[in-house]
């Protein structure tokens, strides 16, 4: 028996695919929106409670919180989850309000570039905050060792 593909069929677009069943790829975007949404729910609430529990929002408090694992790791996860979720949401808006296939393609191309650029910049910021804190700790350790009369002997 010859296999008939939708491209061999004649008639309207709906007529060509009717009766073929699901392609199983349709819900992909929808599901990812839910998965990242669930991630955002947990991680953003963690951020909200962390902000409320900080003694203040000064540079020292925020820096100290973000430079230790309990701040840096959830923030890195939040960045990935939230930028992914935002990309999916903006895509839906673009598909609804930007008309014409060429223009739609171009805007979604820019959206992808902006999403990756934004998320990468944010992750780099967190990495730099952690690295700066580690550097400060090492400097302090060396200073203490030198004061104790053991130059260079701290490490």
């Amino acid at each position, binding site marked *: 028996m010859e296999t008939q593909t939708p491209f061999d069929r004649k008639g309207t677009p709906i007529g060509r695919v009717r009766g073929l069943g699901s392609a199983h790829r349709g819900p992909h975007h929808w599901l990812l929106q839910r998965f990242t*949404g669930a991630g955002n729910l947990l991680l953003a609430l963690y951020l909200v409670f962390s902000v409320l529990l900080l003694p203040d929002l000064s*540079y020292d408090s925020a*820096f100290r919180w973000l430079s230790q694992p309990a701040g840096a790791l959830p923030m890195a996860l939040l960045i990935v989850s939230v*930028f992914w979720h935002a990309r999916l949401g903006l895509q839906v808006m673009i598909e609804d309000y930007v008309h014409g296939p060429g223009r739609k393609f171009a805007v979604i191309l820019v959206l992808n570039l902006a999403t990756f650029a934004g998320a990468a910049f944010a992750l780099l910021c967190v990495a730099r905050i952690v690295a700066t804190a580690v550097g400060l700790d090492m400097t302090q350790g060396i200073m203490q060792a030198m004061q104790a009369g053991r130059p260079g002997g701290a490490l």
Partner: protein
Amino acid sequence: MAERPLSPHLSIWKWGPAMLVSILHRVTGDGMALVALPVLLWWLGALASGSAAYETFTGIATSWYGYVVLVGISWAFFNHLCSGIRHFVLDIGAGYAVTVNNRWSVVTTMGGVVLTAAFWAVLVLA
């Protein structure tokens, strides 16, 4: 794409709670993507750059227009959070009866405002 008639748009429908919560979900979600994420990037960038850059950020963030933006972002967040949870409930097939749907649409929209007020009350008073 074939030119076919589109479904009637906003101007023709009678407003109801479900319509409001749906529109607010989209507006707050896309609004946060376009406004809150750049603010988050600025905050992280300032923290990574040092105390001088952080002072610049907090200086603008604590001006009157800074507070307008921050309160707006926090409302968008809590509104989107509540209507997002509503979406999870609808996804399992619950809450479609008209009276139930209308009631939870109102609760969702009010919840966003209440949580925003609670957040700022704790932040400022505590």
